[in-house]
């Protein structure tokens, strides 16, 4: 087990993993994509950490919902460890999943010791937090 599996990522971390499948072995997924951690929990029996994950896409940025988190500023992309403008799809819980923080689902990009690229700045954290609270009130979010 890699060391990073023992340490939960902080909420609002940009991480890298496979979505919506596991390792590339049996699926079309060949490359870990940027993902956003929207909550964390621990299994009291196994100790395994679980993350509520929203996925990032570099496509159809012009179709983003008003509540999605779109990162397009070059300096911000650089700070977050992203190369291209990226939309994190957070406007509905139907686009999120809860995944174990293990190497079956997450993988570091080359040059990174763990599958964590960065943590969102405060203003983006506030936006995401407020959207998540709204989704929770509407009952539209995957529960731990």
């Amino acid at each position, binding site marked *: 087990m890699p060391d990073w599996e023992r340490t939960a990522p902080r909420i609002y971390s940009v991480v890298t993993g496979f979505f919506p499948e596991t390792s590339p072995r049996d699926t079309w997924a060949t*490359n*870990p994509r940027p993902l956003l951690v929207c909550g964390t*929990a*621990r299994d*009291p029996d196994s100790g395994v950490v679980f993350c*509520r994950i929203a996925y*990032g896409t570099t496509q159809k940025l012009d179709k983003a919902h008003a509540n999605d988190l779109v990162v397009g500023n070059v300096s911000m992309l*650089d700070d977050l460890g992203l190369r291209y403008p990226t939309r994190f799809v957070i406007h509905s819980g139907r686009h999120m*999943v809860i995944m174990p923080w293990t190497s079956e689902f997450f993988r570091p990009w080359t040059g990174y010791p763990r599958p964590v690229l960065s943590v969102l700045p405060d203003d983006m954290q506030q936006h995401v937090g407020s959207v998540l609270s709204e989704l929770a009130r509407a009952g539209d979010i995957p529960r731990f």
Partner: protein
Amino acid sequence: MSLRKYAGSNRDAKRDAPEARESFDVVTEDKIAAWNSKLNDRYGLGRGRLEVLEDPAAA
């Protein structure tokens, strides 16, 4: 000074990561729903069994 150097090192690592150059597609709701169901069955999720560490949705 050392902090500035550290930040620069991270940026270099990012620029060199070949994975960052990929295009990441949009995932359909159906595919996510099917996967969610598989994960929930496998790990017993969605029943409030896990201990929350950080969750704005729980506030």
